[in-house]
């Protein structure tokens, strides 16, 4: 193998170069490529997951938005109904309360009238009595000096009748 000699081929040197290369493979693989590819794969997985999550979140968001819109519409509708009802009810309550107070006022007025009437009557009868007595006493005082009992009575009755007519 003269050609190998020409190129200075020596199995020991070849072995040394092989060892060099083996070291290179080992170092590159364990220090650089293995952790690097691992991290890249993990990152790819994470990015894929993140994208999936984002897509899912978006879908969920639109779904939720739709639900929320529906709910808002529904609640608006409900609120209108409730408001209408409340309005009606309050009107009803208002009118009912007005009638009640009217009635009460009427009742009170009537009561007051009745009371006034009865008081009037009582006062009149009292006044009648008192006036009668005063007249009697006055007449007694006057007549004690000369009028007979008969004339007395007659005169008293006449006056009483006149009083009654008033």
């Amino acid at each position, binding site marked *: 193998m003269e050609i*190998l*000699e*020409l*190129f*200075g*081929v*020596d199995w*020991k*040197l*070849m*072995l*040394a*170069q*092989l060892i*060099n*290369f083996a*070291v*290179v*493979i080992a*170092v*590159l*693989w364990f*220090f*650089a*490529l*293995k*952790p*690097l*590819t691992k*991290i*890249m794969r*993990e*990152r790819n997985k994470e990015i894929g997951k993140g994208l999936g999550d984002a897509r899912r979140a978006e879908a969920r968001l639109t779904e939720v938005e739709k639900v929320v819109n529906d709910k808002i519409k529904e609640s608006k509708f409900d609120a209108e109904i409730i408001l209408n009802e409340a309005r009606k009810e309050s009107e009803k309550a208002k009118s009912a309360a007005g009638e009640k107070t009217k009635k009460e006022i009427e009742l009170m007025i009537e009561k007051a009238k009745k009371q006034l009437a009865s008081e009037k009557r009582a006062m009149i009868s009292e006044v009648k009595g008192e006036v009668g007595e005063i007249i009697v006493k006055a007449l007694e005082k006057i007549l004690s000096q000369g009028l007979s009992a008969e004339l007395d009575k007659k005169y008293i009755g006449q006056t009483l009748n006149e009083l009654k007519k008033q």
Partner: protein
Amino acid sequence: MAHQTTDNTVEQTGHNEHTLFAQPVFNVGNFHVTNSLLTSWLAVFLIIIIALAIKLKLKKVPGVFQAMIEKIVVGAFDMMDLVTNDRKKSEQVFPIIFSIFIFILINNWLGLVPGIGSITYNGVAMFRGGTADMNTTLALGIFSVLGANVFGVIVAGAWNYFNKFINLKALIEIPKKIIKEPAIVLINPINFFVGLIEIVAEIAKVASLSLRLFGNVFAGEVLVISITAMAAYLVPLPFMFLELIVGVIQALIFAILSLVYFTIASMEHESH
């Protein structure tokens, strides 16, 4: 024999001319430490530093440095997929192929560093491109072809792979199928000899890989040195750039051819 050559080199190095083989810088016992081996050690040292830098700077959210490395790695994977057509297979051989590329590239470029050839020790240039030495390229070529065959054995199974070269299967088949297809008497012996030729082809692969790389890098170094000897300023610059590109291309060719050999070896399984 080897001694004689190295003796010659020591005599020749007095003139510091570029020899076809690497020159021993110093001896450790019986072992000649050549300038190419020294450069290779330097390359290994650099690669270790780069790998450690990557290891230490590794983060989930990449910085500029890591992004650059990742870009290279992703590009390498994509390129390998073009050859293997199979991401899984690419991942299996990636560390070997990528290491081949990096090791050869760094070695090619180290030989080009301006002034690196002028550092001498005992009158011998201390550094010479690692791949400008037949020992390096032959070792890599043998490694690549042997590796491809080992990969083939792992993927296809030892018996199947053995029959790729010594095609006993074809011979055994003859009595079984001879009644159905009489032509098999002619075809299968031919297949058997094709298998034998495959063995020669494997040796040819080693020779082509190692000689191509050695030839290109060595020629490049000689070219740059010659041009520099003619005109030291500016004129060698385009040639330096050319050699930088050649360094990348040769590393790439070596790596891709190795990948092709690996792929072919692992494909035998499917075709049989």
